[in-house]
């Protein structure tokens, strides 16, 4: 994630593992409920909502984090779930309204599946990042 968290803060949460665990227990249900209600969050633990036009890419049946697949229907609907608009059609449209619209062009690294279900917010605070692409 590209949200800047000061190094001392990250260090604090890294050192106090018990505290971080407690925070995780407290924060996770709040994050899950709020983000699920608003964005259909799947709790991947490595939130990139702000870089994908405030649209959760994990709602894509192929969990694509770098853009749409080639199977989007002519009307912009998903090839797997025709009742759903393609996540990336929405993401691209919404990203135009964001001041940081260029963020959608960032190459997203492979997902760390071991972090699925954890709180992305706490992960950011503790500086637990995904592998960056070189």
């Amino acid at each position: 994630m590209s949200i800047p968290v000061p190094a001392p803060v990250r260090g604090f949460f890294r050192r106090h593992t018990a505290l971080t665990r407690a925070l995780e227990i407290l924060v996770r249900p709040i994050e899950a409920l709020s983000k699920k209600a608003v964005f259909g969050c799947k709790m991947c633990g490595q939130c990139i909502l702000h870089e994908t036009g405030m649209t959760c890419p994990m709602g894509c049946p192929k969990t694509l984090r770098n853009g749409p697949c080639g199977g989007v229907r002519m009307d912009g609907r998903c090839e797997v779930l025709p009742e759903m608009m393609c996540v990336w059609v929405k993401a691209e449209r919404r990203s135009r309204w964001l001041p940081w619209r260029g963020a959608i062009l960032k190459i997203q690294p492979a997902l760390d599946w071991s972090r699925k279900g954890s709180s992305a917010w706490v992960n950011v605070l503790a500086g637990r990042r995904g592998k960056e692409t070189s």
Partner: protein
Amino acid sequence: MIRAVRPAVSLEEAFRSGLPVVTCEIASGDGADPADVIRRARLVRDHVDAVNVPDNTAGVAHMAAWAAAALVAREGVDPIMHVTCRDRNRLALQSDLLGAAAMGVRNILCLTGDHMVHGDHPDAKPVFDLDSLQLVHLATLMRRGRYLSGREIEPAPDLFPGATENPFAPPYDFRPLRLQKKVEAGARFIQTQITFNVRRFSEFMGRVRDLGLDQKVPILAGVAPLRSARAARYMRERVPGMEVPEAVVRRMEQAGGERARREDEGIRICVEIIEQLREVPGLAGFHLMPIHWEEAVAEISARARLRPARSLAAGAKEDGTPDDRIEATRDSLIGGTREQRA
């Protein structure tokens, strides 16, 4: 030392010649007999620079792409192995890329993969551990001698990763940008979805040229012959991401039900599209997708005067054609790829 089978002229060398490149996809084996793959490869090998071998197309189980690609390599033509993210996680993908490289398969086309709901095993567990772009990145990383874990690969596989783009599926404005992302991730060549709507393809290429991508990677336009009106309608209605304009379907219907006539009309439409695409600047050649109709490739090549770059390069030297022209186009083409290799 045991050496992998190497084609006389590789796809990379064909691109480097700066001449128009022709590739063709063949159907992968639908049984354990290698003769089927070999027969299809032989039908097209004299007309193309490289042969694409699909990976469980449309989510229907077939022979492993690396095995079929190795069979194609034995026929003396450079294979392009499709690799999809649908069926394998990052461990399996990496081992397959290494295995393929050991069998003499170095061109890999990185794809997300059609979803299994459209195939013969809709009940299978979707993997999609990586996406196509991350796969391009992974291949580039392995080429540089690292696994995704960071561990060293010794020796590193000499992979030549490519990617695809579909100009005919929404969001249209994002397609050239997605192509740009793939090039940034390390894609060395691009093959597009089948073109029937030349106007839309032309608009797409305009944006691609604005981004300077045609100078960085060779882009091959996908084309395919239709065999019947039924096939045209099936493609339009049942294949997601395919755009078949009404005019094309109508022409196929007007050709009637007689096999020779409808097949001739399908090839004629395909050749017309190739001629129209020749007017689009920034293309490095064509990618034929005959869809189980490899017999049509010879006819299309003859009518559209398509010749593989390798034969042209050889011909140019025999005729005493000045190499300057080839050199000039070659430089414009590999400028970007050389930069990427650095």
